[in-house]
Each structure stands twice: as structure tokens, then as C-alpha cells.
């Protein structure tokens, strides 16, 4: 367990900024407690400093998780966000997309969001922008990257893809082994 290096921080924040923009500040400057990002086994954990200090007692091999896992660095040095970060992403999301009830299950099985399933979308969402997917009753279901801007979506035919799938809560079932 160690703090992120400058290079890693840059890559990580770039990715995070795609989804929550400048709201990253709120993650670091919190009124309740000081929180920090820590790297452990190539995974980035977001945890309060007090818990982090207690966790230092635990050996490297035995420590498996602390706080909330945001994602991991791949072998090529890129950062990949995990579904476990959804709570924070949803809290600070810049662009939101709501899917209709009939689109919930297809998305949670790992499919892209189609125009036919699009319920609502944040106005002026640009193309290729990270967005959080919600069900119509505001349960966050996952996140993805928009394939079209809001204005382009209007003209799209019903089978056209609106959001490319990145992660969904179905992964808790499908990928319990590989996720963490």
C-alpha cells in the first residue's frame, strides 16, 4: 500500500475527470475527514486516513481491500474504473442518462444502451463523454461513454447505440471472481 506516484495520479485523475469533471476536488477536500487514494496490488482505493493508518498493521499479502476500490491500473499503465466506484461517481456525476424499465436488464447484462431504451438524458451531453446510467427510479446501474451527443440522439433510429457500456452492477454477479 502506497500513495500514487505523479504519473499514476495524472492517468487516474484524467479518467476520473471524464465522469465527474472538476468534482474530484470534492473527493479530496471533504469536510468530515481527510480522505486519500492508496495503491495496493495495482488497485486504487479511496479511504479515510484514519482507517488507512489502522490498515497499515496488516501485512501486504493479507490485506485484500480497504475502503472503496475505484479501479485498477492495467499492465500497460492505463487506468480502468471498476463498478465498485459507482457510488462516488453517481454522487458527483456530471452527465446522467436514464434508461426505461425495459432497458434495465439488457444494460445489466453488459449491453450498450440503445436509443429505444433511452428514457432521459442530461441536456448538452457531448459525444464520447463519460456518463452515469440510472434506472427511471434513480437507481444507478452503471456507467459508460456516450456514443452521440444529446442533439444527435434525437435523430437516431431506435436501434442506434447511445451509450457504450463500460461497467454495470450486473458485474457483481457475473464477475465476482475477476472484479476484485
Amino acid at each position, binding site marked *: 500500500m502506497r500513495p500514487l506516484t505523479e504519473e499514476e495520479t495524472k492517468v487516474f485523475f484524467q479518467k476520473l475527470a471524464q465522469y465527474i469533471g472538476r468534482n474530484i476536488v470534492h473527493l479530496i477536500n471533504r469536510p468530515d475527514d481527510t480522505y486519500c487514494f492508496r495503491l495496493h496490488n495495482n488497485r486504487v482505493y479511496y*479511504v*479515510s486516513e*484514519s*482507517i488507512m493508518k*489502522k*490498515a497499515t*498493521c*496488516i*501485512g501486504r*499479502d*493479507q*490485506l*485484500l*481491500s*480497504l*475502503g*472503496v*476500490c475505484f479501479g485498477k491500473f492495467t499492465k500497460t499503465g492505463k487506468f480502468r474504473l471498476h463498478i*465498485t466506484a459507482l*457510488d462516488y461517481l453517481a454522487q458527483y456525476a456530471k452527465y446522467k442518462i436514464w434508461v426505461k424499465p425495459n432497458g*434495465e*436488464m439488457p444494460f*445489466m447484462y453488459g449491453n450498450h444502451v440503445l436509443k429505444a431504451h433511452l428514457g432521459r438524458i442530461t441536456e448538452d451531453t457531448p459525444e464520447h463523454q463519460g456518463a452515469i446510467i440510472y*434506472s427511471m*427510479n434513480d*437507481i*444507478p*446501474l452503471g456507467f459508460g461513454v456516450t456514443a452521440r451527443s444529446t442533439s444527435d440522439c434525437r435523430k437516431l433510429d431506435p436501434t442506434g447505440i447511445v451509450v457504450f457500456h463500460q461497467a454495470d*452492477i*450486473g458485474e*457483481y*454477479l457475473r464477475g*465476482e*471472481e475477476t*472484479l*476484485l
Partner: protein
Amino acid sequence: MGRRARNKQADPLPLEQTLKRKSSEGSGNKSKKAKKTQNPPKKQPQQPKKEKVQKQKKEEKEEIPIIKKNNKIEDESWDNVETIQDVEDDEFEDIDEYEDLEDNDEYVIKKTSFNFGSDDEEEEEEEELEIEKEARELDEKKKEDERLAEEELKINVAETEKMVLTSGQEIEKDSMVAPDLALIQQRIQDVVKILNNFREMRDPDMSRTDYMEQLKKDLCQYYGYNDYLLSKFLDLFPINEAIEFFEANEVPRPIVIRANTLKTRRRDLAQALINRGVNLEPIGKWSKVGLQIFDSPVPIGATPEYLAGHYMLQAASSFLPVMALAPQENERILDMCSAPGGKTSYISALIKNTGCVFANDANKDRIKAVIANIHRLGIKNAVVCNYDGREFPNVIGGFDRVLLDAPCSGTGVIAKDPSVKVNKSEQDFQMVTQIQKELLLSAIDSVDANSKTGGYIVYSTCSITVEEDEEVVNYALRKRPNVKLVPTGLDFGKEGFTSFRGKTFNPSLKLTRRYYPHTHNMDGFYVSKFKKFSNKIPKLNKDEDEEDNEKVENKVVEEEVGFNDEEDAKIIKAEEEKRLKKKGIKPTNNKKKNNKK
């Protein structure tokens, strides 16, 4: 009335005659069947076109003679009283049928009601006469069948009664050849009845142990337990209760979910699930977060609500240790054997993500489930680690509360995992109790007694054997005089044993709680709660511990017995001197002791 009379008539008939009657009946049946095949066209009499109706009438007239013949034949043999009543009933039913049909076919309703209302009524009456007769025949046939079935039953009963009377050896032979479960069940019931009223119902040649042996054998065979486990349960419960327990183990416990208060409220969750067609109900007064699922059209472990972390699938029994632990906000808590994370997440939910929860488990594969669950449920204060629980005070100690849901033989969850019935032997029990004792001691040592809010340890198992429950707790009380038992805070459940088959335990063990599948409809469970009032393990015990550390392999029980009477300082001193003399051989040990002194 009629039936009784008939039985009187029928009973004295020898078998041959009844058989004959059967065969004649059979031929009668054939004619009926033939008629039935013709019936369908006749059963749509409301067809509005008159021509059709007339045609049908003709057909019916042709049929009538056959029916009458049949009636005559059977009227001769049976009295009429009951059948007529039945037929009247059937009339009503038939009228109902018509109404149904009319409802179905609007076209028909219009035509009949407007044009041919009166005609139709007449027709109906006629047809009902038809139907009456048929119905009567059917009724009679049914009764005949019933009568025959009754006779057969009687024959069967006679058989079983005979079997019960046979001697033990013969029964053994039978069981070797082919186990007849119905027969065994009957025998179990009979033996239990005898044992419950032994003086009056016993066979004077048989002793109580004979009956018990027989019962044990039958129970083993009927429920599929191994001998060792079965006699354990029979020691634990009186016979009637034991059988209830065995029966309860054959039925699955209700599915229970726990609403995750970090993300939703129980009422909202219930509403969301009801909207998905799930049939549910709050689990009871004792829990504010439990929901019992009766049936569900969707898999309850894969709904969007589940994946979004709004609830956790969790047995009702596993709420109990966490409720007993009663964690307070901003505390540091250890869950020693946490997989799959149900209790850990409940703790975190109770302290609202404040403080810190250490989730430990010795099995690395099962820990993956813990990590997935705590992330899904939105828990942010957890640290997951993979140690053997026995290492614990050395890794990190000073916790405010520790929950130890110890690994166990699983005798409380046989309904969930029936393999327990056969694959647990005496050795397994010894092994598992040894681990439990060590885990409990290290759990106690990991707690900080000076904690302002805490200093509590909860020990629980999903096993109901005394070896894994009371004996382990009793051992800990003996080994660690700096803890005491306190009420668990659970207002239901049975009190723990203070004595069991010649062993006497600390009287405070009645503060612990036991739960059984047949009385509480949850998994068999045991919960006890300790309060640690001093961080110092009294000195004498410390010496003992050192000794234990020296010879890990043979933890000698005799020495513990010697040290039980700690208050008698003189004796202890003398003993200690003796021991020091003995150990004078080992220089390292002496140094340690000198240092401490």
C-alpha cells in the same frame, strides 16, 4: 347413512364376490365410457339454431334406453337416499355450467334471451334429467371405488400392524432387504407412543433400551443420519422434540433478506419488490430490517435492487449475533470469520459507515464474496484481510467489539446442507471445538477492556451441539477470568445449558441463547456475549499461558483443573514453586519469568 348400510352389506362378502362385482362394474364402466364419448356434442345445448337442438333431442332419445338399463341394475344393489341428494347438487352445478358458457359466448346470450328463452328452459329441464342420471351413475361408481379403496386400506393396516408385532430380528432382516419408508415411519410413531406411555403400553418382554435401540435404528434409516450424530441429538432433545427437529431439518427455512439501511429503507424496498411481484412480509417484531420472502417470480438474488445493494440475502439467524453485538458509532470492530460478509455489512450499516470494521476470514476464496458484497452494499469503512483468526491479537488488537461467528460442524443448518448428516464424525467435532476454543481466546484478547463504549465479545455458532457451544464458552470463562457473560439483549430463544449429561458449567451460561429450527423456524444457532472488564489476564493464568505456549501440542487439561481455585493463594504459591523447580532446567524460561517479576 346409506354408505354405512352398504358397508355392512359389503364387509361380510368374501373376496371372490367383491372381485366379481368389480368385474361386472368394469363392464358397466365400458358402456359409460362409450356414452361419454358421445356426450360432447350434447353438452352444447345452447346452440341457437333450432334444427340443431332438435337433432340433439333425437340423439338423446336414442341414448336414454341404455342409461335406464344401467340405472336399474345399480338401483337394485344400492339404496337410493344419498344418490338422489347428490344428484340434486349436481343439477345446480350444471346450471352453473350453463351460466359460464353463456358468459363466454355473447352471441349465444343475445339469441337465446331474445327469441327462444322459454323453449330453452324446457330443453334445459329435459337435459338435466339426462345429466341427472349420468351424474348418479358417476356418483355410484365413485362410491364403489371408495369402498374398494377402504377395504384395501384395511388390508394394508392389518399388514403394518403385523409388522410392528414381529420380533426385532425379523425387522432387522426386513430393513436389510428393502427399506419401506412408510412402514418405518409407522414403526417410529408406534415406538414413540409406547415410550411416552411406557408403563401401560410396553411389551413386558422388552426393556426401554430395546425400544430405544429400535427407534435409533429406524430414525437413522428414515432421516439418513449417522449413528454418532443421531445419538447426539437424542441426548440434546426429548424424543418428541428430536423428531420435530429432524422433520424441521427436511424442510427449507424461509428466505430472508435484510434491507440495507445505508441505501434504502425497508418500506421502500418492500414496495419496490412487491412491484416486481414478490410476496413478502416483515420478519417479526424483533428485527426492523428483515423481510421474509414467500415466493417470487424473479430470482431474488439477481433483481436490480439486489445488484444496486438495497438488500442482502441473509438467514434470519445471522441477524442475531450482530444484534447481540450492538455496535455503536465510531467504534473499531473486528469480524473474525466474516465470509460471505452478511454480518460484516450489517455491522457497518448499524454504525452508519463510521468508525472502522475489520473483516477477516481464513479462506481466501470466500473473501472475494466479502469484498464484492461490501462494495455492492456501499460500505466504506471496511478493511478486508486474510489471516488465521488465531493470529489476531498479534496482528492488531485493541478493538472495541469483536464478533466471532466461529466455523462449526453446521448441525444447525442441516436443512441448508444435508451432507452434515453423514459426514461428521467424533474426530470432526474434536477438531472443530479445538479451533473454536483457540479462536475465542484470541477474540477475547483482541478486545480493549478500557474502551469507553465497548469491550464486548460475541461468540456464535450455527451449531447446536453442547460441545461447540456451552463447553467452548465455559472453557473461555475458565481460561480468561477477566471476562464475564452478559445478557445478549435478545429477548427470545432458549437459555443455554448450565449442566449437560453430568457436566456442570458456569451458572452464568444461562445468559446465552439457543435457537432451534423447529421452535423458531430459523437455523439452529447459539449466541453468547462476553464483557471484558480488565485487560490484565490474572497473573496465574498468564503463567499458564506461557506454559501452553511452550508445549503447544499437549495442552494438558489437568493443570487447568488445578488452577481453578485461584483464590486460595497459599496452595497456588506452593504449586507455583513446585513448577518453578521443575522448570529450573530450562534457563530461557527462568529468565522470562525473572524479567516479569
